[in-house]
């Protein structure tokens, strides 16, 4: 791997950033949402189909990016639709990343409070994680990429180990019949397409990439790896607990890990190990969105980035306390995903169209 320059990331790092950004809360909740939406054991096929959605979106995005090399979306959107509208879109995207940070940090705190640190106040958890995140984010995108590089193999390892351990509970009958109700269920992909979103950050991070012509490979791997991990999660959770069993479990994946025991290994509660790794995982997710939000503000207003980072910190903290319970929080998560689809699916398409019509304005 080539040594990364300051403020730049290699294509590998970009891929890992995308993967880390994509794998977040969905790992714990996707099986439930998918089971309720699809309703048949064909969920895994629906997931495979749904992964085409982010891939298509990312393809449009990199085509758009290619027309404005070395510039982030915040910088070039004004060139396409005019200064005012460009600023507006940029602000909406910034707001999106702020909300995303809020959702991730609050969800992390909720899960940690439920399963790991029962008596620690949620505010303390959020404050500590946000401080840590700020410390990372101030270092810029290169630091975030390096931390992601450290966490990424841990996540993969934990996943594979957990999947192997739950094999004892796996029942193939739970994944049958295949296409029992025709092919219609496998096109109910909304919740899954939304969970596998994440590749959209290529819209901004491509400008930081050293070899920009490798963007196609980056988005391909950035969609493939999370899809495989989500697929593994879905298959193992449904194979062990069945579609009907997980429909009303808040975090089916945690229940799966709580369902097996290996007395030989001395250690019984693998859920805590898994959740610690998951916490690290979601820490990178929220750091990335935190960084992208501050970057947006700094580039839109053409100011230094650090004041925005420090300034956003209390805002994120206060707003993250706004959802009253898990229901409101998951509603927020659904909203974020819906908005992401519009912002990164439809808006880039329109901009690409306008950009083609207007030709290159430099």
């Amino acid at each position, binding site marked *: 791997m080539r040594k990364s320059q300051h403020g730049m990331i290699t294509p590998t790092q970009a891929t890992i950033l995308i993967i880390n950004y994509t794998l977040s809360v969905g790992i714990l909740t996707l099986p439930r949402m998918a089971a309720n939406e699809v309703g*048949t054991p064909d969920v895994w096929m629906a997931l495979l189909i749904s992964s085409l959605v982010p891939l298509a979106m990312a393809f449009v995005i990199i085509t758009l990016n290619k027309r404005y090399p070395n510039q982030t979306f915040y910088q070039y959107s004004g060139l396409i639709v005019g200064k005012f509208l460009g600023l507006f879109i940029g602000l909406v995207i910034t707001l999106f990343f702020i909300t995303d940070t809020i959702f991730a940090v609050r969800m992390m705190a909720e899960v940690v409070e*439920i*399963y790991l640190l029962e*008596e*620690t106040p949620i505010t303390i958890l959020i404050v500590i994680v946000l401080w840590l995140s700020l410390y990372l984010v101030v270092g810029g995108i290169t630091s975030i990429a390096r931390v992601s590089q450290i966490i990424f193999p841990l996540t993969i390892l934990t996943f594979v180990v957990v999947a192997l351990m739950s094999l004892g*509970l796996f029942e193939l*009958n739970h994944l*049958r*019949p295949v296409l*029992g*109700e025709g092919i219609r269920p496998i096109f109910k992909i909304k919740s899954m397409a939304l969970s596998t979103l994440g590749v959209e950050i290529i819209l901004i991070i491509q400008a930081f990439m050293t070899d920009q012509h490798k963007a196609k490979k980056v988005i391909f791997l950035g969609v493939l790896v999370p899809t495989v991990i989500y697929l593994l999660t879905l298959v193992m959770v449904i194979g*062990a*607990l*069945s*579609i*009907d*069993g*997980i*429909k*009303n*479990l808040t975090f089916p994946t*945690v*229940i*799966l890990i*709580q*369902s*097996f*025991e290996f007395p030989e290994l001395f250690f*019984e*509660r693998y859920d805590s190990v898994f959740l610690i790794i998951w916490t690290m995982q979601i820490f990178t997710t929220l750091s990335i969105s935190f960084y992208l939000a501050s970057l947006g503000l700094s580039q839109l207003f053409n100011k230094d980035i650090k004041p925005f980072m420090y300034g956003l910190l209390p805002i994120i903290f206060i707003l993250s306390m706004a959802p009253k319970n898990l229901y409101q929080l998951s509603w927020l998560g659904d909203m974020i995903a819906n908005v992401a689809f519009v912002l990164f699916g439809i808006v880039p398409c329109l901009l690409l169209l306008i950009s083609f019509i207007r030709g290159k304005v430099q």
Partner: protein
Amino acid sequence: MRTINRFILLFIISIVFLSGCWSSTDIEHLSMIIGVGIDVGQVERNQTTDQDELLEVTYQVANITETTSSLENSEQSGKPYKNYVETGNSILKTAYDVNYKTPNPFFSQHQQLIVISSELAQQTSLQELLDHFKRNPESRASSMVMISDGMARDVLESDDPTDIPALLITGIADHAKSARILKPITLAKLFSKLNTNTSFLLQNVVKEEDEVKLMGAGVINGDTLTLMGFLNDEEIHGVTWLTASTDEGIVLVTDEEEHAIVYEVLSLKSDITPTLKNNKLTFNVEIESEGWISEVFDVSDKITKEEQLKKLEELIKKDAEHDIEKTLKKLQEEFQVDAIGFGEYVRINYPTYWNEHKDNWDEIFSETAIEYDVKISVVDYGMKFDE
């Protein structure tokens, strides 16, 4: 001088922030729940609560200090566990009440077993009884769930100073893969059955002459999720033949000269195929088993002869068919529920039919013809070689 001051400040701050885990609790200071037994509660005198809603919950807590010291002086020390019993109208309420009596807080992340008494299971839905264990993030989905044809609190008592009853029961269920014990059912596996109102079997555990025994199984009605009755050991063996849930077990037959011969199962396969013709469902079950003869009470011992072998296989087959017939009769005629998961095969093979009929599946099952064919082959005679 200023740098030194800064250093001192740094050290003082680190005392606060690096001490870590200040709210941790040592393992000796936790009341580790291992098993929970739920019985019908008795009404206390000056209470006006509705009798139906009262639960008597037994919490089996590991006596950690005792277990460690018992190695040294097992004679004097007490039991390695302690049972706390409390009556109340919800499980959590009893847990709180019991907590007033224990020196340490409850910790249920190592819970292994939930035993529900038959009396309670007959009147209260399992969905309601197990709801707390589903909601509580602390409870483990790997806990086994069993029914007791008797009092759950009796099952969780033991006179042996070295046994922890909950661990004894789960231990037996785990290792004794006999044809007469059901495959252990954990909380995690129950979720889907409770959600879809499927009938199922739960292992029965009883106390007989101061001995804990796993025998028979409770039949749970899917509609009400309450206990309907029990299958006995023989009928469980029938279930094992039909579903091939385990491939261990023995069949004891006696030949025409009253010699006992033991057939030990090496492999057991069952192929359940539903057939739908003219909207009428039939099942065909092909059962194949291989095994060896591991004990013969006959001096002449001529079982290795070809024609003798055929007879023997026929005898074992008869025994298996007898068990299967009894089981099916009981399930289809007496209980009229599909507690052995035949519906699964309909769901997989005829999804459209299943979706139309899943709500009255138990009814359909009890009227469906089930054909079965048992093939037994004796492949070996143990480590005895007759030339």
